């Protein structure tokens, strides 16, 4: 329960900070700009692509519905 609240807090914090960044007209670094910074070099682009693939496979091919847990 505590962990779930903390996760929601972290997700809320990330979303809130992203909104602040977007409203600040580039004064603060948004997640999109951070991604662009990582993507400047080819290894960075490959790493971002690999993370995207991992999320896709992990979330959509290897998920477990909580009600079917043993």
């Amino acid at each position: 329960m505590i962990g779930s609240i903390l996760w929601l807090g972290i997700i809320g914090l990330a979303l809130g900070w992203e909104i602040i960044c977007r409203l600040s007209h580039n004064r603060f670094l948004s997640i999109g700009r951070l991604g662009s910074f990582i993507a400047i070099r080819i290894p960075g682009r490959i790493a971002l692509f690999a993370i995207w693939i991992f999320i896709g496979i992990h979330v959509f091919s290897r998920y477990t519905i909580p009600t079917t847990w043993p």
Partner: protein
Amino acid sequence: MIGLISKYRHVWTTVIVSIGVSFYAWISTGLKPFSPASYISVVIPVIILATIFVTSAALSPSQIKARDYYRQQAGDFSTKTVLPWVIIFLCGIGLEAIGLVLGGRSVVVPTLSTMIDYLLITHIGRFILFLIWLEVGWMPVNKFINRNQRDQL
């Protein structure tokens, strides 16, 4: 009629592609997890995106267009402005590590995957998340391609 179709060609293409992608996402998220079909359904968009990514020269080391584009998109920033994201990521990694140490499906501290599993219970939840995942992968590549096309005109 033909004039009307060609006038709104871009709109028609977007509508048809959106319907096609939504249909694919709906079918894909209805497949049984851990089945070969579910893996293939995720790999297909990965292959399509990788092909577009490579053919748009974003991975070619000989050109500097992609590097310049992403540098321009990132803009100037100090290391101080990265700090909030570093703190958020570290908090996430820390909580994930605690969740994994507790067995991964702990009720006290679940992992992020376990949290997301609750959003995957319904087909519509999986469908929406799948569309978001596709959009997150497609958006930066699409922006880069659009910029390339505009520069060539």
